[in-house]
């Protein structure tokens, strides 16, 4: 058996290290490490409740709106406040803009450049893919980056700037837009739709949103004259059998995304890919295990735990704790969200492989881009300019408060306890804390560690490109993971 260490594992958000034990050309065991700890949970203790709106978003520069919104949700629970419907609409539009921008950034900057590596030079598709997707120089960047920046102009209107804004409140958003603002939002979306239909999908977004099965997907990407970066990916993925790679452990969950007057736009739930069964989502089942984390023991219940770093802990290999739901590791993200929501193509892609997989993770993000571009147009239309955009704050009640939102990468939850409006506990479990958790005390690997087990790496060892695909298919955010 050979042990290989891969790091800095880049083109992810933050810094990542992956350790593989390889025997007979296949991964026997994998260990995933987060080597940055900043202490946000310690910094939040003792502060006035409202200050979390300033501090917590700065955990993450790529999902800062998600971090703002989970604080707003937690404070809403602590205040017993009811948000203004317009505030929720603008919140959802800004949140969707961030999440779509993240999906695009992942596709164009993090994931696709691996297919432009010299190790694929013999493939028939290589020359075109290298020209289009080569890291830092591919032609796609001249379109995708301005499209991303254009979409993020939504933040200028709603949040003032991105990343890190104080516009998101328990009661809605701090700034009411007027008729001109509503028209500018529509214009930004129209321009972005143009990019998607021209360059990303090469088709109307409705054609992507209406795909219902794996056959539909394959027919879409192989139809005569089909251009677009998404179809190019799916054709490569079929050639490289990415649907048979990087299987998740089974459980997938969503905390529910985009809260509106009638509940979540994408519902909450827990989906078991092994049995195709769906059950209710309840964070009361969540516990964090620190047996392999650079942390001292505390209460495993996030509602009661403290964070006590210990860089010398025996047997530890990551600053990330290991969250488990009823004792099981759980995969989160766009694929989990759409599996829980029951999207037929997504359920089919999982069912055919018997598990979540690399192809399905990327397809789910692309699908969400199409679904959200439509939803954002609808939400803009629903804004009632004569109504309020924010409800006033109310005093916080003493006791426990929980907030949960779906960030681009999955369920993000903050557990806090307040006394006289000051935090006495504060625990954050981020999407990649779930996906890239280390082992627990029962020796159960986290979802990425599980997905890497058994992966064929052949003679390549650390240079194996399959490892790169599996790891990046999760779109990890390492700065959120250990915060």
């Amino acid at each position: 058996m050979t042990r290989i260490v891969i790091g800095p594992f880049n083109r992810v958000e933050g810094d990542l290290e992956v350790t593989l034990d390889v025997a007979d050309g296949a991964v026997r065991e994998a260990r995933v490490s987060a080597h940055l700890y900043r202490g946000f949970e310690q910094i939040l203790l003792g502060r006035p409740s409202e200050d979390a709106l300033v501090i917590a978003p700065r955990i993450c520069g790529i999902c800062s709106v998600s971090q703002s919104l989970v604080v707003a949700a937690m404070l809403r629970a602590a205040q017993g406040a009811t948000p203004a419907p317009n505030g929720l609409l603008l919140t959802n539009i800004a949140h969707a803009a961030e999440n779509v921008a993240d999906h695009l950034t992942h596709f164009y900057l993090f994931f696709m450049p691996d297919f432009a590596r010299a190790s694929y030079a013999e493939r028939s598709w290589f020359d075109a893919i290298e020209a289009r997707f080569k890291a830092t120089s591919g032609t796609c960047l001249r379109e995708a980056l301005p499209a991303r920046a254009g979409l993020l102009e939504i933040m200028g209107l709603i949040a003032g700037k991105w990343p890190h804004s104080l516009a998101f409140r328990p009661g809605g958003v701090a700034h009411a837009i007027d008729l001109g603002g509503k028209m500018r939002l529509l214009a930004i979306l129209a321009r972005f739709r143009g990019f998607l239909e021209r360059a990303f999908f090469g088709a109307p977004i409705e054609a992507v949103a209406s795909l219902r099965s794996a056959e539909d997907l394959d027919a879409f990407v192989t139809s005569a004259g089909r251009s677009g970066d998404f179809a190019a990916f799916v054709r490569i993925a079929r050639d490289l059998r990415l649907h048979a790679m990087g299987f998740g452990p089974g459980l997938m969950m969503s905390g529910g995304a985009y809260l509106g007057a009638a509940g979540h736009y994408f519902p909450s739930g827990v989906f078991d890919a092994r049995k195709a069964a769906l059950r209710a989502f309840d964070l009361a089942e969540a516990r964090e295990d620190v047996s392999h984390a650079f942390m001292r023991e505390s209460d495993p219940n996030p509602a009661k735990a403290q964070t006590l770093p210990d860089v010398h802990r025996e047997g530890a290999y990551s600053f990330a704790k290991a969250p488990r739901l009823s004792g099981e590791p759980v995969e989160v993200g766009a694929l989990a969200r759409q599996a829980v929501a029951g999207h037929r193509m997504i359920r089919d892609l999982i069912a055919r492989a018997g598990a979540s997989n690399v192809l399905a993770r990327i397809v789910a993000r692309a699908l969400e881009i199409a679904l959200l571009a439509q939803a954002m147009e609808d939400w803009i239309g629903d804004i009632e300019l004569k109504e309020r955009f924010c409800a006033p704050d109310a005093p916080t009640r003493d006791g426990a408060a929980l907030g949960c939102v779906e960030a681009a990468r999955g369920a993000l939850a903050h557990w806090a306890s307040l006394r006289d409006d000051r935090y006495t506990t504060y625990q954050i479990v981020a999407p990649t804390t779930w996906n890239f958790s280390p082992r627990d005390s029962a020796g159960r690997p986290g979802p990425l560690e599980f997905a890497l087990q058994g992966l064929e790496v052949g003679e390549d060892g650390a240079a194996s490109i399959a490892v790169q695909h599996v790891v990046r298919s999760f779109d990890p955010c390492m700065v959120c993971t250990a915060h």
Partner: protein
Amino acid sequence: MARENPFNVLWLQAASCGGCTMSVLESGASGWFEELRAFGIELLWHPSFSEASGREALSILERVESGEIRLDALLIEGAVLCGPDGAGLFNRLSGSGRSLLDWISRLAPLADYCVAVGSCAAFGGVPAATPDPTDARGLQYSSGDLGGALGVEYRSRVGLPVINISGCAPHPQWIMETLQALSLGLFGGADMDSFGRPKLFADHLAHHGCSRNEYYEFKASAEHVFERGCLMEHLGCKATQAVGDCNQRAWNGGGSCTKSGSTCIACTSPGFERAVGFMRTPKVAGIPVGLPLDMPKAWFVALAALSKSATPKRVSENARSDRIEHGPAPGVEKRK
């Protein structure tokens, strides 16, 4: 503008959120990489974007460290974590076993220019907030005190202290204009303020150009965050004390913090993270403690009293509303 040799830039992330990278990625009408190329700026390695990963990436860093690759500018994003006990083990560079403290201490003396991108790398930023669990420092400052991870005496190879592009996150153009000027040899000590911040943004106050200026003039103040009035008197706004041309540039196509109802938290200032109650104005005897920079207190109080007594109804009522209740009355354009 064309250079003979590329201007070699190495970008490393220490204890960062990655937000400064996300910000600069918005730069350039044809994308950030085209903009870099137009100035002959070569990214030796960037953690978020480079193809080189793992061993290939470490090899680039080692060749810079050995002097084999010339380092024109070292750009650091994120605070340098010196804890626990000065060992820097709260932040190791994956695959290398070495702390970022160690890597940065070794590389910074080799760079012609050393640039702190964002308030964390400049002053410590949010990771340094009380109780500062990781001994987080800026490159050359700990909060407002000279020192930091590299020490008081540090100078880059051309003799400059660390260039501090503060902000959380900085405007993409603050980063790019500084980098472009460096690549052209047009940036020197005279272009930095007393905290090492480029004057191209630090010669202004965030207040300059604020769209709430009329409310400020009349001290017509918002009491809730969603009201349109001035955010200074009650809601903690520090724009009259914080440097930055924040309200003279378009953020994300046209926004700014104060435009969106986000109070200014002085994110360009050393130690901004030490505040408690960011969105509440501390007062003594009803008068805000933090008054505009270089304005005598007695004058401010007298002017405020005078302007409050002269506030038009339009201004005082709009200030307490979430929208414009009263448009300006016809003046010069009055119909005859």
